[in-house]
Structure formats: C-alpha cells, structure tokens
C-alpha cells in the first residue's frame, strides 16, 4: 500500500485538504503556501492528487470548466480535475509542479465564492487602520506599483488576486498566496472592505466617483470566473451588483510615488 501525505491549504478561511502519495510534492506545497497551511478548522473539501509525468501540452491552453451531473470538470493542458461540491471531494491529475495546483485552487475558490455572494478579483489589496482597500485594473494599471509603494503600517493582502467574501451586510477582503509581479505572498488575514479603487496612472493623485453602471462594468471585467455556465454568470453578476451597492467604488488616478498613500485615507 502506498503511503499517503496530506496538507491543508486554507485561503479565505476555507480549508481544503490535499492528499498526495509523494512527500516531496507535499513539502513543495508547504513551501508554496507557507502561511496558508495547516488550518485548525476541519476541511470543507478534500482533493486526491494523482501525480503524472509532465504533459507536452502547453499549460497556457485555454482552461475549460464545465458542470456535468453535479460534478465540476476542470481541464487545461497541464491538469485534469473533477470536483463534486455536494460530496465535498475531488481529484486532480497533474505533474509535480506548483502552477497547476495553483490554477485548480483559484478555479475551485471562484466556484465556491460564486454560491456565497463573493468572488476573486484581479486587484491588489491592503489593510490600513483595520479597513481594507482594493486596487483593481487591467495589467499595467498599477496594482504591483501601488503595492510596492505601501508604507510600513499597511498590511499587504495581495498584489494580484483579492479574495472577496460576503459577510453579513458587508464584505471582507482576505489575503491570498496568489502573487503577481511583486512575487510576494499576501498576509493570511482579513478586514472589512472600505473602498474599491479602479487604478489609472496620471500626472497627479486624485480620487473621483464612478457611476454605478461603469463600476459594475469594470468590476465584471476584473472578476475571475472560468465556467461557461449561465447560473454561475447570473450569480457573479448579482454579486457584483450587490457589491457596488454596498461598497464605494472610485477611480484612483495616481502618480507612481509614495504620496498616493496619503490620498487614500
């Protein structure tokens, strides 16, 4: 009988237990998700990971996520996975690399959050004075730059993907291990979201209000979701509308130096 190793990765307060037969891979995951492992809470979901020889197919092949008979099937060149949310279990086939499992976890969390009024958002996130601000925008808008400029009293949640959870009448931002160009994992903590800013760089620092329709349009453009499933799209769209009704969404034009953090209070 083959030995089994396990590790719990908890992102956004949702523990997911991963089983593998390879201790080297378990240790690789422990390093990759340091700060997000070994939750005290019981796992919400479990995945068995079957390691295969590396595929020749390109990992950047378009991801496909489909719901069939209550089971999500996730597929890309470098992995195959299936997940039955009702049973709380799933399987992943991939080679021993951290990138494939990272993608699977992102997708699984988007599916979990879609049913709970939350979402993953392409944005930097940070906590200051007990409140979180999110900084979203297309690639090059300044997510990494504004993260790099953060003063010492700011706790960085992520410079790439924010974890947004619906809690009671508001929203909380949670740190994620999903790093961008800064190549630095966020802190594993959370805070109520005070603002969402859409970034653009310009000659001066200023904050402007946005029409709700524009806010939703831009929010939808930056929410991560992969499944071509009409129920999921409906959920994500309604979540985006709810978010815009409850959280101030503003346009932040900034010049890339540390004074921008004086503008954000």
């Amino acid at each position, binding site marked *: 009988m083959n030995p089994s190793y396990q590790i719990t990765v908890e992102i956004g307060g949702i523990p997911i237990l991963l089983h593998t037969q390879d201790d080297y891979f378990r240790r690789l995951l422990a390093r990759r998700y340091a700060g997000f492992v070994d939750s005290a809470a019981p796992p919400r979901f479990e995945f068995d990971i079957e390691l295969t020889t590396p595929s020749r197919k390109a990992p950047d092949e378009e991801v496909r996520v489909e719901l069939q008979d209550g089971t999500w099937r996730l597929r890309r060149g470098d992995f195959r996975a299936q997940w039955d949310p009702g049973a709380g279990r799933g399987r992943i086939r991939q080679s021993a690399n951290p990138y494939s499992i990272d993608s699977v976890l992102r997708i699984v969390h988007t599916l979990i959050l879609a049913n709970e009024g939350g979402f993953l958002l392409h944005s930097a996130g940070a906590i200051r004075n007990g409140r979180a601000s999110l900084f979203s925008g297309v690639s090059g808008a300044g997510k990494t730059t504004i993260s790099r400029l953060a003063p010492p009293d700011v706790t960085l949640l992520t410079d790439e993907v924010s974890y947004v959870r619906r809690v009671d009448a508001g929203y909380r931002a949670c740190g994620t291990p999903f790093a961008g160009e800064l190549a630095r994992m966020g802190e594993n903590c959370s805070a109520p979201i005070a603002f969402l800013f859409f970034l653009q760089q310009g000659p001066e620092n200023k904050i402007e209000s946005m029409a709700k*329709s524009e806010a939703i349009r831009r929010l939808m453009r930056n929410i991560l979701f992969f499944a071509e499933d009409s129920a999921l799209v409906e959920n994500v769209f309604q979540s985006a509308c709810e978010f815009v009704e409850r959280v101030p969404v503003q346009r932040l034009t900034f010049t890339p130096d540390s004074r921008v953090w004086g503008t954000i209070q």
Partner: protein
Amino acid sequence: MNEQYIAKSSAIASRLLGGEMMIMSAADSTFFTLNPVATVIWQAADGLTPLSEIVVRHVCTEFEVDPEIAHRDVERFVEELSGHGILLVSERPFADSATRSKEAAWA
C-alpha cells in the same frame, strides 16, 4: 406590417440599479446598460403584449414622444438587443418561459 412580440431571454442576468437597467449575457458576458426608455421597454417585454402597444402605452405616454419617432427608435433598440440574443422577437405571442429558454439556447 406584422405585429411583433418581444420577450427577455432566459440566458441573461439583469438588475435595476440607480435607475438604470443593467443586463449581462450569460452566453458571451456582453454587458449592456439601458437608458430610461429602453428600460421601460425591457420591463414591458413579457412576450404577450404587442410591441405597438408597449410603444403607445409606455414610451409615448411616459416620455411624451411622437408615436412615429418612438416606433422607429424602439425598432432599432429591439433589433440591437435581439442581435445579441438577449431579447427574443416573434410575430406570435410567446407561449411560456420554457419556450423562451429553448429559443434563447438557439440564439
């Protein structure tokens, strides 16, 4: 000219926010924001009321628009939204929501 009936596709998500109707297509994630006139037409698109009646009863009355101009603008709006598959158009009343789901899937 034949009468037309319009119905909302079931393959969309919509929400009235701040007085504006926002619609998203589940098929291709296209996003639309409707102006007040288009919002009234959208809300009246029950698949059973003739389009001409919607124009007269809602558009002309509520926005004090000349019927001929209103008809022209509404036809343009209907053509655009039906082109994206989020509004369904028929020369007969739509039977029920199941019909709309099926037709939306074909759109």
